[in-house]
């Protein structure tokens, strides 16, 4: 198959530099809201792609033709496996080629499922190898634990036929899933047999659909966020203030972790971090409920911020995001809350990504944007 799509105007592409990747690493980790996996390995792989002469390019949303075929792609599996058993490197491009073969189509651009965490990098690497751009949007605007939790699935995209590839060269096609949830369940079962980390590309979406239902400007946003933090670190300014300013977010707590409970249920990490406030928050107690990501923030027993709004735990001095598995007793952290995108808080979206979807049946979502 030929590489570059005739539909795409190459003049409009934003070609990423190594400095952009450094900023994306920082921004994606923050948007990971505690989960999504560490983007460091992905950044190194993306950097190697640049050094090997590949172009990592972003296609602005307004330059996506309505009839373009956009395939979203990402890593699926356990972040810790990805950190130790690093990928072979061409899993993503094998997914793209297998999907083209199965559907007898030519893919025009790659999409991002999840801008938070490691999956910000995966589409860039696969797209560069395939000679395609990545559309500047994603399906979450943050990180979530399951595949059906994207705006693409929520607003009607059926993600099969899909292709899953591992590092051994195995290629699996999910021809049809009865629902998005079935797709997630079957893929999750298969990934275990492939060693706990694989790459999956979903059925193509139209450019028109992506423009309407993707969370816009995901890459522009994550890179700008990362740049703000790196700049603040360089000039010894307060990185946390820089994030709030950049994101229209709010610092909701500064404190020290005084207790940490974690346990497993059904393959996911559940837990709770308890915090004691200091500085402006001295005298306050807070907690963060965790299911891979940070989901609910309570202050003095009152729920204040809840999923799908973003709850971000940062090292108080450097502004570096702390993932849920890196939380430790005694850490000094700042907690920020950022409003989720309006597409994530419609009744249809809240069915899939609201507090009830995570088993918090007594909690009602109240948008922090309106507080």
């Amino acid at each position, binding site marked *: 198959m030929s590489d570059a799509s005739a539909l795409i105007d190459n003049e409009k592409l934003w070609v990423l530099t190594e400095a952009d990747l450094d900023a994306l690493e920082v921004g994606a980790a923050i948007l990971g809201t505690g989960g999504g996996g560490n983007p460091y*390995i992905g950044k190194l792989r993306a950097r190697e792609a640049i050094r090997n002469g590949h172009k990592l390019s972003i296609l602005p949303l307004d330059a996506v033709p309505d009839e373009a075929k956009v395939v979203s792609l990402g890593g699926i599996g356990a972040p810790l*496996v990805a950190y130790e058993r690093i990928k072979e490197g*061409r899993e993503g491009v094998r997914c793209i080629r297998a999907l083209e073969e199965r559907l007898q189509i030519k893919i025009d651009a790659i999409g991002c499922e999840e801008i938070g965490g490691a999956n910000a990098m995966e589409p860039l690497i696969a797209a560069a190898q395939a000679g395609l751009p990545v559309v500047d949007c994603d399906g979450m605007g943050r990180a979530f634990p399951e595949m059906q939790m994207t705006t693409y699935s929520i607003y009607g995209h059926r993600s099969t036929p899909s292709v899953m590839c591992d590092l051994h060269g195995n290629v699996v096609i999910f021809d049809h899933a009865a629902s998005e949830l079935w797709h997630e369940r079957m893929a999750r079962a298969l990934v275990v047999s492939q060693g706990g980390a694989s790459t999956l590309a979903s059925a193509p979406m139209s450019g028109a659909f992506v423009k309407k239902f993707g969370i816009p400007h995901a890459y522009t946003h994550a890179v700008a966020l990362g740049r703000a933090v790196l700049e603040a670190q360089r000039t010894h300014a307060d990185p946390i203030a820089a994030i709030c300013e950049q994101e229209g977010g709010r610092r909701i707590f500064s404190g020290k972790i005084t207790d940490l409970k974690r346990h497993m249920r059904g393959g996911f990490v559940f837990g709770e971090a308890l915090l004691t406030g*200091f500085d402006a928050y001295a005298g306050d107690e807070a907690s963060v409920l965790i299911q891979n990501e940070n989901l609910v923030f309570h202050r003095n027993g009152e729920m204040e911020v809840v999923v799908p709004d973003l709850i971000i735990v940062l090292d108080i001095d450097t502004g570096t995001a702390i993932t849920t*598995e890196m939380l430790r007793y005694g850490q000094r952290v700042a907690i920020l809350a950022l409003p989720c995108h309006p597409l994530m808080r419609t009744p249809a979206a809240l069915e899939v990504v609201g507090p009830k979807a995570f088993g918090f049946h007594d909690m009602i979502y109240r948008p922090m944007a309106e507080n």
Partner: protein
Amino acid sequence: MYRLGIDVGGTNTDAVVMQGSTVLAGVKASTTEDVTSGVIEALEGAIEKAGIDRSKISNVMIGTTHFTNAVIERKHLNPVAAIRLGLPATACLPPMVDWPEDLREAVGYNGYLVRGGYEFDGNPIAPLDEAEIERIAGDINAKGMKAVAITSVFGPINRAMEERAKAIIEARCDLPVTLSSDIGRIGLLERESAAIMNASLLSLSTRTVDAFAKALKDAGLSCPFYITQNDGTLMGAETVKAFPVLTFASGPTNSMRGAAFLTGVKEAIVVDIGGTTSDVGALHLGFPRQAATVVDIGGVRTNFRMPDVFSIGLGGGSLVRTAPSGKVTVGPQSVGYRITKEAMVFGGETLTATDIAVALGKADVGDASRVANVDRALVEAALAEIVRLLETSVERSRISPDLIPVIAVGGGSILMPDKLGDLTVIRPENFAVANAVGAAIAQISGEVDRVYALENGLTREICLKQAEEEATGKAIAAGAVLETIQVLEREDVPLAYLPGNATRIHVKVVGEMGGTHV
């Protein structure tokens, strides 16, 4: 019985003689190129000052920043063959991919990727390609490399392939081999980088440890000696020859542990003020608080547990200057080791932080009359700046509003005021040799870090207990006394998205060194 603690730093070599919890004598000497003569000068000085019979010294503990400095300065590093077992996994990121160019060159940049390695459940990714290892052995000999580092994917879960590859190499090359599973935890690139740095230091570590041994022998000391590692616990001298990277953070650890010991305080902020910089960190339960994020050594990411210490550019030799705006600055530039020539009180022409302390009557070193005419307003402004720098750094390390004390150690601690904000400052006796004291009191540890599958009746509690017993066994094998063993770290982290409730368990125990339990 007595213990001898020695700290071999980049500039100074310090020695202390201790009896139980009493410091009998402390002496500072200069570090020498051959290491040996500096160590002899310091320890002879300390033994003489303490007036003890050297045959009654039961243990010698040495702390050194020698290996860290070698990596930071890119000196004394050997070319290494970095062999990774994992193909087809990991093909996209070869060994040393994220290292600074100059360090990569210093160790030869010889990376080899071989079929092999394990999945998270211990099954092979691919059978080990033994023929390829044999071919690599030929290449190693042809290119004259000096050491080998072998890293297998999920090596900490199953080390059989690392061991097999080592046996093949050793049958063909007469070279030392480092296995990643002996050094680090899960996290392939960080563990592999640590193994490569370790292999590159093996000649230096052998030379240095031999120099220590010679110094002790020349001084007529025949007792066993130990070297302190990152967490403030001890390793036998032979272990350090094989694993020099485990000493990387021992400098700040020793000064903080020493500060805790000298004051008897277990919760405090420690400020170690040297000639050019000050290291600031928090003590919790008498041990340094550990850093939460990845620590970088010489520009390379590692996943060692390191004390959460940060440095500011303030020390005894810091330059005191007035900016064009009229603002008085102190540091970060310093006269460094030239302080004894260049500071005003020592007859020089440069106004330093030490001169300010003398001018204020806070310190009695050099010739105070030489700073008697320094402008009083300048002296006061410089003092205010010194206090501001110290206050900011202490505030950063403070983990609670509790009024814990600040412990000032190091040669430059004359700069420290008696109170810092609302915190009281303690300046222990022997503050200048806290590092050597930290070495003298170090304990022995044992550690286990592994992924367990919690199934078939195996519970979290059973696995934690197994890990604790195994760690205790390791500590005792390394010289600890069973009755003194206590658990320092116990951590279980469930792994997301894996079946069988895979859980990573990390247990570390510490105990007193045999024969030093007093």
